[in-house]
């Protein structure tokens, strides 16, 4: 039993808002996490697990100002400002993993939020209405990758009566003139938060510069890691890589981020991961996985293994963005935000995906269509056609990441099975 399962078993029937706000609870959780029995075999995983646990504990115990942020908001800014970043979209995934999402979905439903909306955000709303999330002091998001964060966060900022920021990002960056307004918005956010965090603006800018320096260092290791992952046969299972998305979003700007990626490089070089994602024959059915995956307990992973298929790469768990200038942190962070392939047209995303497919020499690709996601599902067919142009078959797999009641395991398996037959 892994750490997550252990904690779920222990607490799932006792979970309550007051429990999550108790130091005793968090002391116990961290003690369990650091018990040698539960310690992950990989040092990188140990670093990331500790970081996430500490961050969540500090948010619930409100040890510093808490800032809620969405996936593409640069964490360097939050760490530089000495705030606690909290990423509700991860919290929704954790709720699904721990079997708590259903009640939160029902709460959101009862509050009038349509079931057509993204279940990540319905869970966030339901959990917030039930006081299962740490109260924010500020809420911030970027206008990309999707509408759900700006829209649900707007409701939540009203609910908590806290300031709400949305950083608008242009879809097309032709020059610094397009980046300046993004940089300006980040600076305005900094100005608003630095008072609350007890730092003057100048001091805050200095610390953000330091966070940017750490981010650059982590980036160096992350790029090395990505290069190693392209090894043939594969050195790591892409499912594990998808789990690293939270690290990529929440840690940049911290020493933990540097340590995580340095350890990943070390682990990969020393063969500490099971090669090829546990397939008997690592050269069979190397898959590129696109968008996300179900976070509740499901049999897809096992099914892939049984069919000797390995997810060898996926699109989100990669470091996007150039090296940044610590002396000009806002413009640099603006550039990082705009550089993400989900920030522009689908053409940019498709170029990244094709490069991944080529570098990893995949046999096929799966685009997982999370039911309420317009931004990703809306271009799945284009992605499929574009991959076909370089000779790679794609399965568009309709499913759900969070709402288990919408999960059709048998159908998914049948479609995957049929897809594998076409790869023969």
């Amino acid at each position, binding site marked *: 039993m892994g750490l997550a399962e252990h904690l779920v078993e222990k607490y799932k029937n006792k979970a309550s808002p007051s429990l999550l706000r108790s130091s005793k609870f968090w002391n116990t959780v961290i003690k369990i996490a650091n018990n040698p029995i539960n310690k992950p075999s990989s040092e990188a995983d140990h670093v990331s697990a500790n970081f996430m646990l500490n961050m969540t504990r500090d948010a619930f115990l409100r040890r510093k100002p808490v800032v809620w942020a969405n996936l593409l908001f640069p964490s360097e800014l939050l760490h530089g400002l000495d705030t606690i970043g909290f990423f509700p979209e991860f919290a929704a995934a954790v709720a699904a993993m721990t079997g708590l999402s259903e009640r939160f979905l029902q709460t959101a439903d009862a*509050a*009038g*939020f*349509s079931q*057509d*909306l*993204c279940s990540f955000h319905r869970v966030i709303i339901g959990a917030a209405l039930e006081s299962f999330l740490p109260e924010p002091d500020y809420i911030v998001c970027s*206008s990309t990758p*999707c*509408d*759900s964060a*700006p*829209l*649900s966060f*707007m*409701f939540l900022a*009203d609910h908590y009566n806290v300031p*709400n920021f*949305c950083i*608008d990002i*242009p*879809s*097309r960056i*032709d020059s610094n*003139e*397009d980046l*300046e*307004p*993004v940089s*300006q*918005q980040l600076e*305005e956010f900094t100005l608003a938060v630095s008072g609350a965090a007890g730092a003057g603006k100048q001091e805050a800018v200095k610390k953000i510069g330091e966070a940017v320096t750490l981010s650059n260092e982590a980036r160096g290791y992350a790029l090395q890691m990505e290069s190693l992952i392209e090894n043939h046969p594969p050195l790591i299972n892409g499912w594990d890589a998808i789990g690293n998305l939270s690290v990529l979003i929440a840690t940049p700007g911290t020493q933990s981020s540097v340590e995580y990626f340095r350890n990943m490089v070390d682990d990969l070089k020393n063969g500490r991961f099971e090669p090829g994602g546990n397939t008997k024959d690592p050269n069979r059915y190397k898959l590129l996985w696109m968008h996300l995956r179900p976070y509740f307990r499901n049999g897809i992973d096992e099914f892939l293994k049984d069919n000797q298929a390995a997810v060898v790469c996926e699109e989100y768990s990669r470091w996007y963005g150039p090296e940044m200038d610590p002396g000009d942190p806002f413009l640099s962070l603006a550039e990082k935000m705009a550089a993400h392939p989900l920030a522009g*047209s*689908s*053409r940019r995303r498709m170029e990244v995906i094709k490069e991944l497919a080529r570098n990893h020499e995949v046999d096929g690709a799966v685009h997982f*269509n999370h*039911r*309420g996601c*317009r*931004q990703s*599902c*809306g*271009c*799945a*067919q*284009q992605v499929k*056609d574009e991959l076909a142009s370089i000779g790679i078959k794609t399965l568009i797999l309709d499913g759900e990441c969070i709402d288990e009641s919408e999960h059709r395991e048998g159908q998914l398996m049948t479609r995957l099975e049929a897809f594998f037959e076409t790869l023969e």
Partner: protein
Amino acid sequence: MMKDVNRNNSMQAGWLCAYTPLEIMAAAGLTPVRLFGVEGGSEIADNLMGQNICPYVRSCLAQGLGGEAPDAVVFAGCCDSMRRLYDAWSYYCDSRFTFMIDVPRGKGPASLAIYRNSIRKLADKLENYTGEAITAENLKDAIRQRMKVEAVLDSTSPGAGLNGSRKHQLFIEAQQQDSRTFISGYGDNPFLNKRNPKQRNGKNITISGNLLKSEILIGMVEECGGTVCALDLCSVERFFTWRDISHDMIPGGGLDELLGFLTQSYISRSPCPRTLYRKTRLDNFLGLLRSSGSNGVIYIPLMFCDPFLYELPELKRKTDELGIPGLLLQSNYQNDSIGQIRTRIEAFMEML
């Protein structure tokens, strides 16, 4: 369908979102024509974009795939579905000109700069496309013409006595004709009192949503004894940009100054549910209900419209507080399921 409504020889340019600066298209010598999609569904468009995307967007893609859209189309990055439509259109349709403007959610200086930069790029690209320079003079002229169009539309406010169907029709005409043609048809002819169907006395109903494909739903409410007193749609009440701006406020400077003026005017218009200024949006909506004396609201958002669906619980809560009942009908943007919708409207009207 599009060609029929073009009554002069200028080239047409399609547009979809009310945040599209029509004046720049007109200043480039193009007739802005709003796309309303095709009749019936389109399996091909549904397959290309997926079933859980806005049905208006899918219908418009079908229009593009069928070669029924203008050669130039200006998109607005106002929501995920629209952004993906731009992508799909650029990928699958055979248009000579496509461009997507960035529509910020905020209205601070940085957000205004994003919109201004974007419409400046649009102007540059349209100049290249049409070969016609966009000058300060022709942009000013285009703004004046749009102001006149909106003055005509504004005269349909409740006092004009126009019924809901005719009012909606008039707004759609204004979005599919060039300004001069529309003005010559209706301008200085305040209007229609004599020759148009009048409002009947019934329960006052506001229809709130995105945009309607036709007047069928409005007609149904009217047939059920209601009076459609306000249309909170981006094709009607939220279509206005210039209603509160007079001719003498147009700056006399050069093109840059005019682009700044356009930016300010478009971003300050009555907001759509996607924007960050929810309070203004709610105030405008509630103000509309009060000024029109609404007894009930029919919400008819397009299916999968996230901006509207996230806003809806708050809208309903506010209208409940005012004691104004609401009926939610989700629109698949096709005129099907008529019988079912009629039954629900009848029941709602009886309840009122």
